[in-house]
């Protein structure tokens, strides 16, 4: 088991280097950092000198090697835009993004699984059709439109919830959390719903399809014939078997939730990594963009690893194989 985890972590290093390489080869098409760093009155020579100082005239391979070399030594470089250490900038934004992603995931599971089961048990009911229709609309509208609609409804018209930012946060060690204040939760609600809507729909439909499949299987029919209580049949036997593929898909999607929280963060001015990345693109802040993409690649690898481990925990058959 330890060997398995270790192997995956080593693989992740190669994934990150590959991502960094791809990212770096794209950066020169993003634009010129120098014109974004200097004012209109700055002379061409001063611009050239800065370009030379930052090593932007070096060939691509040299720039890339320098980036990887510094990274391996734990030096993430300094932002072109703010001159702050990139490592600090990104790590200070990680809590906001992770909390948003995790709360969005919980919302999607807490709502998605029960409604999925419900719609599977009453496939032709009026409520089921309504739910299916609504979620279809929810998944068809782009995230930023959902966000703007929620803001204007709950923030501007009703005035119940804040329209931007994180609200009250509490500092716990190096982790700035909004989960411990009412203010923080009020600010978190709309962005988490916005980010979770797609996941929610996916979870619901997946649970519904799997559940209907399982309910048709022989062992459920046999259980019914044997007189096992329906409640136990549905929620113990059927649901457990439904969840295995659901967890895989949702887990894999979670990496995407973190990576694509960019849109939600921008709509809600949520100070997470995604927002930082967007600002960095605007200013061609190459060090920040590079490190962000590598960190996101690491998240993907990590999430996949956790999904694999969960899989083992849920499905007893895999455990048997592992120990044999």
């Amino acid at each position, binding site marked *: 088991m330890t060997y398995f985890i270790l192997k995956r972590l080593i693989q992740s290093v190669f994934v990150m280097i590959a991502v960094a390489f791809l990212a770096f080869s794209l950066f020169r098409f*993003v634009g010129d950092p120098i*014109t974004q760093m200097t*004012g209109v*009155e700055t*002379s061409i020579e001063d611009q050239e000198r800065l370009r030379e100082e930052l090593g932007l005239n070096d060939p691509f391979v040299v720039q890339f090697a320098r980036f990887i070399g510094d990274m391996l030594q734990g030096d993430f470089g300094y932002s072109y835009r703010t001159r702050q250490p990139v490592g600090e900038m990104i790590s200070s934004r990680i809590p906001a993004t992770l909390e948003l992603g995790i709360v969005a995931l919980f919302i999607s599971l807490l709502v998605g699984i029960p409604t999925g089961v419900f719609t599977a048990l009453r496939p032709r009911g009026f409520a089921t059709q309504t739910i299916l229709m609504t979620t279809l609309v929810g998944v068809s509208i782009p995230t930023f439109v959902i966000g703007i609609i929620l*803001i204007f409804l709950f923030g*501007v018209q009703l005035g119940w919830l804040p329209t931007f930012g994180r609200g009250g946060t509490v500092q716990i060690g190096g982790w700035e959390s909004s989960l411990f204040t009412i203010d923080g939760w009020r600010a978190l609600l709309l962005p988490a719903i916005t980010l979770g809507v797609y996941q929610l729909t996916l979870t619901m439909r997946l649970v519904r399809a799997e559940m209907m499949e399982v309910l048709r299987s022989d062992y459920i029919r046999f259980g019914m014939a044997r007189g096992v209580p329906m409640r136990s049949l549905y929620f113990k036997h059927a649901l457990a078997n439904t969840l295995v593929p659901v967890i895989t898909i949702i887990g894999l999607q979670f990496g995407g939730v973190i990576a694509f929280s960019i849109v939600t963060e921008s709509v809600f001015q949520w100070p997470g990594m995604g927002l930082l990345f967007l*600002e960095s693109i*605007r200013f061609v802040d190459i060090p920040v963009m590079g490190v962000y993409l590598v960190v996101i690649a690491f998240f993907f690898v990590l999430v996949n690893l956790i999904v694999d481990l969960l899989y083992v925990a849920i499905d007893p058959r895999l455990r048997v194989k592992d120990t044999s």
Partner: protein
Amino acid sequence: MKMRILSNSALVSGAILLGVASASAESFKWASNTDPQTMDPHAVNSAPVLSFLNNIYEGLVRRNQGMSIEGSLAESWEPLTGEDGWRFNLRPGVTFQNGAAFTAEDVMFSYERASNEAADVRSWFAPVSEVRVVDDYTIDFLTKAPNPLFPDSIANFMILDKGWAEANGAELPARDAENFATMNVNGTGAFTLASRDPGVKTVLIPNAGWWGEVEHNITEATFTPIGNAATGLAALLSGEIDFIQPIPLQDVAQVESRDGFKVLEGEETRVIMFGFGHEHDELLYSSDVSGSNPFQDVRVRQAAGHAIDIASIDRVLFRGKIEGASQLVPAGISGYSEANSDRPAYDPEKAKSLLAEAGYPDGFSFGLKCPNDRYINDEALCRAAASMFAAVGMNAELSTGPVRDYWPQLREDSFDMYLLGWSPGTFDMEHPIRFLMSTPNSEKKLGSWNFGGYSNARVDELLPGIQREVDPAARQAMVDEVVAITQAEVAYIPLYTQPLIWAAKDNVAMTQRADNFFMLRWVTVN
């Protein structure tokens, strides 16, 4: 019993009213689309930074509500006698926010810091040959030639405390890594920094020891950058912020239709214009002309000018909020040429006949480059212009892109015609003459934004005179000549002055300055 309930609820509502009233007088919240990237006044020469830091730091001189220069840390200034330059008589009794006294040594230190290679603002000091401290409250700036504009050109040159900077290792602006002055301040201004979380939130509080007369009633001001325009508008309309700059044109009606909010409109000093590839020997993006550049013929450039219908652009794209421009600065800026205030009339027939005269009776195609995130409605403007050009036979192949990619393309000369906006940093006509109309010359630092390489010997000859002439009438005569030449040659097609649109709650009074700077010391919350 009933009485008691009533009086209780009256008490409660009274308390709520009081709470609301005192909360609004205490704290002021505002937003803008860009975070000032540093708190160092010499590190970056960009409007978001200079505008923000003008609340914390001060210069020798400053601009008042009408943009004219007035004394700040210098009480008065006069030209030196016997040599070229200016003497500044400093204000005694001023202290920095940490309590240190302000003297000429701090000005000297700030000059050395701001003119260093590591500073992005050093171009302001290109005319300076030497700076001499005469005594604690007198300092001389010597210039290489007579320079009547010098005091105007250093309104954003902010003074740092020498002792503080040296004690904290911030002798120079941060170039690679951050330093103490990136995140901390010690100015003489009306406000000081209470806390800063870059990109998230910056809080300012009044400087109790400020020398000036306090006009504002703010006890705490919180700035939040909000990049997404719709989010910013929602934040204002939900009451979470008191003021936002700027808002998109299409949201003006939305704000005006609601009770308790107002829109502040003005003219920015930025003129939007089209430029040509004057020095290109052939068109780069034409499908029917090769080996020559029709825009080198003045008649073709004139035709392009007559093809543009500013009134329609104003009505359709700008909801009647723009003013047509005849030259590269708007009326009211010093040096504006009253004698040349007519812009080319919209006359498609004349444009067609000019094209025919120039040998293009059937028109021609060319490439038009535009940014899509730099100026208000820039992409829409270029689409409209392209169809207006097409109506007279000039088929513009429009390509647009984000500004981070746009300037490099212009520097590489990949355009036939391009869009540019220019705001004169010194608020004088000399600025666009120097940057946009002079023959590019990197040694003399001239024409660095003259992408098309427009060149006219007489304009080049007149510029030094304009920079040196002390007599206003003689100077204006030279400026008038430059404007007349560049209009006759259609060096650029000036289009209009960009509007300035801010939005605020009704109970907030403030001043909208034409340089888009927002000064907290002119804000009162009622």
